């Protein structure tokens, strides 16, 4: 599961995340973080068996959870493997293979639309 977490400054100093990892069977991966004295926003990826429980725990602790269920799709006919999209992806979901074929990993994608807006052949888009 991928989700945006938003939380208030009070929570920033708490060690919710470390408790989370200690107490639940999950893997926790921070993809992006933007934390200021006014609070924070964090993009995370959780895997493991207790995702649901972990999400409930966070909500209880005052972290607002906003799951992302967008996936990126690429039209292989239209795509010319130019690679323009690669360096725009904030989570490195777009990569090239050995022979320079451009591939997107929809599990990693967070639906930011950076790539879709910049593709010269409009070959890539995000759907729910």
């Amino acid at each position, binding site marked *: 599961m991928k989700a945006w977490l938003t939380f208030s400054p009070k929570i920033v100093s708490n060690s919710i995340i470390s408790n989370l990892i200690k107490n639940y069977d999950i893997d926790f991966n921070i993809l992006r973080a933007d934390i200021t004295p006014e609070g924070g926003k964090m993009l995370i990826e959780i895997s493991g068996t207790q995702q649901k429980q972990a999400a409930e725990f966070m909500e209880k602790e005052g972290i607002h959870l906003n799951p992302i269920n967008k996936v990126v799709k690429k039209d292989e006919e239209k795509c*010319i*493997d*130019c*690679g*323009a*999209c*690669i*360096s*725009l992806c904030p989570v*490195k979901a777009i*990569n*090239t293979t050995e*022979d*320079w*074929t*451009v591939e997107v990993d929809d599990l990693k994608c967070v639906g930011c639309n*950076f790539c879709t*807006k*910049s593709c*010269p*052949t*409009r070959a890539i888009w995000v759907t729910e």
Partner: protein
Amino acid sequence: MKTVEEINERIKDGDAVVVTAAEMTALVKENGAKKAAEEVDVVTTGTFGAMCSSGAFLNFGHSDPPIKMSRTYLNGVEAYSGLASVDAYLGATQPNRKPDIGLEYGGSHVIEDLINGKEIELHAEAYGTDCYPLTVIKTQITLENLNQAVMLNPRNCYQNYASATNSTDETLYTYMGTLLPNMGNVSYSSAGELSPLLNDPYFQTMGTGTRIFLCGAQGYIIGEGTQFATEVERKNGVPITTAGTLMLKGNMKEMDAEYVRGATMPKYGPTLYVGAGIPIPILNQEIAQRTAISDEEIVCQIVDYGVPRRNRPIVKETNYHELKTGAIELNGMEVPTSPLSSQKKALEIALKLKEWIDKGEFYLTSPVEKLPSKGYTVKPLEIQKPRTLVKDLKGETLILAHPNDAINEVAKKMVQNNINHLPVVDDNNKLLGIVTSWDVANAVARDKNNLTDVMTKKVIIAREEEPVDVIARRIDKNKISGLPIIDKKNQVKGMVTAEDISRLMGGD
């Protein structure tokens, strides 16, 4: 050592040894240039990149009654028809005349659709003459029923091209793709060691009449491209910046859309992805050695597109090996890179050309005249009228606000001086923010008294040394009506407003 005729004999007999430029690099490294020159007959190159300076000559044939087309539109994209009566030149970067389509479907897309055999709407207008009475035509055309459809690209296959990054704090949309703020990415456009003109950097084998792979057809080099240059800095024999270019020609009726594609660079406009491959006959050891150039040996500069001037500052010198790893270090940060031209297709093209030669479907030509190898530089276009810099703008008396000023005082100042913006400065005249009449009205409405609470702190500024045209674009892009002028010491010198600029431009 060898001649083109001898190589063609071997192609005919099916004995020619053909390798791609990437294979040649490995071969020479292993066995040396002497042995490679003896063994290899042809090295094939390839590139598949956005080449804006491309287009097509189309001949529609005569209608009955006939027309002398003076304005021609293909699927809403204007083609230049100031040549005879039913000829037109369709440029790849021409946007659509329908504003709702605009940059999304332009000349390059029409070219792709034609090659794909699609029907295209032709709309032509004319003033009518005794011999050409018709004044308007609306009909459908296809590639098949055109008399000629000749792709003619004035400037393709740049020998080398700087990569781009962006130091400003806003995203830039350029012909080098989307450039993220604060040097968030780097985009490069050359195919590196596979690229045609990097494999024959002194043009020892190519020139007018060289037969090539062009968009899946057999086309020709018809001469040096526009902006062709030879007098440039070189390393390892190859230019480190833009240098040679090619003018190319090919029959669109024989092309394959697999190797040519209409595209739009976001907020920049249409461009054509052109696939080109050039065979290099290995006539002697020196030519063999040149084709062995590797990505590591080809230097490429990274320039800052954040500075919209002709000479953009160079941020770093790198090479294609490093760029192709996918990340590069800039000012201590790891920055992702994007190729922009398809490395995959470049290799496919080099392999396709090799296949053609192997099968005896493609023969080499000796150029009628080689491309010039010295004496060419690119002249800039000097704008006759001296450029107006921000500091040349006639300054009005400088009116400023300070953080402790009362809102009603600020409002009074604005009304008295008939202005809409007021820079807020500290005691040393350093900029802290800006207030607009809108901010002030807002403050009054919400009963706010503190100027620092209502002013905008992230201010878009104009520097004294910047040309006014650049500021005009900035005003337009940010949809603002004025910005403070800042000197080298970061002190506020005045305000420049949209009205100032339009007055200045209108005065031309």
